[in-house]
């Protein structure tokens, strides 16, 4: 076949290629060699100017889209994801039409009937969004089905290198303890185990465990006061300082004037650091306790302190200084503002805050308690009930690895992956990184278990080593399947062709070389040159 673009430039020129079922073909070539165009033409993104693409002897353009959609899996580097959970983003590929009717009763049934009637009158689709669309052959027994779907998803996550990402989403997710009593109980057991085995898990020094009687160095001053997760708006960090109850505690404990003094020091240092930068400079992102546009307000506040002294400040102005200190973390900001005396005062105030919390505010904070599950906190926070220490190389990763190991040992990992699969990918998948989006694109093609998989430089956002791992795992899975699919993979890196039996090299719109890899290895052709370069 020959393929040209709209302007008549020939993109691939008289190319003839046959791929059999189960073939694993790597296509190599630079970005304008025609390799990408080949992949796109195979999935009907181009119409050949002459010649044809046949599938089992039939011209592709004579085949029904619903057939091609199921039998061919395609992914390129550019993935579009509509807003959905990660689970639905992956299973989307298995949803073609409703496979049964949803059960409706009462008013829901009436609403559904009206919807169908109206859809038919207006010649719209009456397919039901609420029905089960999942076309999934295995596990016909309904009781086994959800487990089988979960296994399928986990398998795809592993192959696409998404498992760790999803585990992290799961660890960052929240769980309703009433809906999942079993999970809560197991989480608490793992928490206790983690505390007992800190040394063995190499977490000593890497994690600071929360202790109601000790100042948490790795947490902000405000967090140390509250010593819990805010529920609702009342005690959110930005509202903390304006809360009258907390203000009363700060005054009666004598902490307020200390925080004001330290806040002045913090403001002075910060202004000294940042005053030469424009307020919208990107480095302000590094500043967790002050927004760039608030800098001038703090400058005038400090001038007032100079003229009228600290006693001349209004409550609002004092609050601005306290607020700065509330977001301060000594190991992160390193200005020497948290000392033993301050810690002691904060601990006293913490106790007073908890003891005197009025009834109407008791629902506004969920206290850190080593013995109970904190519904307002993430799964990871519940497992750790502590913080990762600042400034240790690969600290957060090492903690995640230790937690993952423990979850696996305790058989909890599937549940956490299940929570992670509920992660909302955001509009257009924007809550995922570009690498994650590409991996989801790949996963959606793999999950179909089609006859033909076409991948077009699908993992460009990953580094070469990560790409190699994913390619190896996908190819391994493809070869062990009962009915192995044909795979045509356009690669950017010739080294990755080692996972394929057949290789085809494109140059200037033509096939420069095609053959079995172990044979091309021996000849001194284009493939050998690509490998050497």
């Amino acid at each position, binding site marked *: 076949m020959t393929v040209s673009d709209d302007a008549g430039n020939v993109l691939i020129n008289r190319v003839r290629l046959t791929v059999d079922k189960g073939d694993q073909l790597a296509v190599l070539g630079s970005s304008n060699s025609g390799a990408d165009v080949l992949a796109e033409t195979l999935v009907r993104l181009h119409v050949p100017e002459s010649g044809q693409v046949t599938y089992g002897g039939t011209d592709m353009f004579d085949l029904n889209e619903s057939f091609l959609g199921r039998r061919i899996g395609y992914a390129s580097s550019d993935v579009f994801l509509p807003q959905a959970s990660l689970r639905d983003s992956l299973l989307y590929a298995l949803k073609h039409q409703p496979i049964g009717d949803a059960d409706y009763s009462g008013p829901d049934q009436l609403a559904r009937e009206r919807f169908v009637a109206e859809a038919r009158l207006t010649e719209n689709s009456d397919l039901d969004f609420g029905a089960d669309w999942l076309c999934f052959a295995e596990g016909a027994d309904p009781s086994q089905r959800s487990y089988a779907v979960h296994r399928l998803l986990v398998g795809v996550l592993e192959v696409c290198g998404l498992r760790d990402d999803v585990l992290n989403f799961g660890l960052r997710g929240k769980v309703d303890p009433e809906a999942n009593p079993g999970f809560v109980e197991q989480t608490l057991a793992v928490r206790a185990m983690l505390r007992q085995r800190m040394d063995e898990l190499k977490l000593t020094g890497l994690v600071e465990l929360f202790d109601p009687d000790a100042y948490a160095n790795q947490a902000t001053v405000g967090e140390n006061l509250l010593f819990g997760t805010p529920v609702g708006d009342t005690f959110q960090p930005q509202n903390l300082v304006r809360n009258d109850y907390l203000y009363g505690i700060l005054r009666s404990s004598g902490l307020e004037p200390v925080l004001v003094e330290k806040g002045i020091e913090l403001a002075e240092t910060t202004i000294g*650091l940042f005053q030469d930068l424009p307020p919208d400079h*990107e480095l302000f992102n590094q500043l967790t306790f002050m927004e760039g546009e608030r800098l001038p307000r703090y400058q005038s506040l400090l001038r007032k302190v100079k003229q009228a002294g600290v006693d001349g400040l209004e409550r609002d102005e004092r609050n601005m200084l306290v607020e700065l200190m509330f977001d301060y973390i000594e190991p992160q900001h390193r200005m020497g503002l948290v000392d033993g005396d301050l810690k002691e005062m904060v601990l006293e105030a913490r106790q007073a805050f908890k003891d005197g919390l009025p009834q109407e505010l008791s629902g506004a904070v969920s206290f850190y308690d080593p013995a109970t599950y904190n519904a307002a906190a993430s799964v990871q926070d519940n497992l750790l009930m502590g913080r990762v220490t600042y400034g240790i*190389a690969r600290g957060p990763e090492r903690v995640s690895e230790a937690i993952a190991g423990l979850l696996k040992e305790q058989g909890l990992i599937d549940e956490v992956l299940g929570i992670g699969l509920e992660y909302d990918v955001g509009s257009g998948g924007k809550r995922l990184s570009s690498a994650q989006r590409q991996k989801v694109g790949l996963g959606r093609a793999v999950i179909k278990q089609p006859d033909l998989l076409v991948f077009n430089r699908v993992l460009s956002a990953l580094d070469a080593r990560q790409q190699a791992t994913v390619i190896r795992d996908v190819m391994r899975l493809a070869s062990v399947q009962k009915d192995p699919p044909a795979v045509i993979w356009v690669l950017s890196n010739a080294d990755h062709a080692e996972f394929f039996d057949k290789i085809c090299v494109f140059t200037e719109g033509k096939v420069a070389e095609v053959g079995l890899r172990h044979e091309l290895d021996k000849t001194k052709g284009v493939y050998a040159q690509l490998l050497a370069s």
Partner: protein
Amino acid sequence: MLLKEEVELLGRVALFQGMQPSQLKLLAFTSKRLTFEKGDMLFNQNDPGDAAYVVLSGQAEVLIKNDDREVVLATLEKNAIIGEIAILCDVPRTASVRAATRLETLCIEKEHMLKLIKEFPGMATALMQVLAERLANTTAALSDCRNELASLRGA
């Protein structure tokens, strides 16, 4: 170690000499403290370079792999800067660096460094002077090597 002390230490690093104290402070503030345990890798040869490290305490070894054999090229100590070329231009790491003892560093991310340079042209001039001096030294060393090689060949 407090920010103040880190600033002092940065001032002693040759690459940053000539920078204003206020810029050094900002550089220290935007940098991260990072501790490595003995044996931890700071980075591997051919990795993309995304950060430079200033040694605060401990020792680091620079090594290259030759046919699966490790060769330690140098050991770096307090005040040394590691991987600084990577934060100024896009080149992969030319060698691997490993913590030879427990190693405390200040990690300067490329992104932050470039933003600072963009904001303060004076900083670029100061860096350029240090780099030009180094280049002059390297060129001199290279011509010495060439002369030596030529005289060896002639002998």
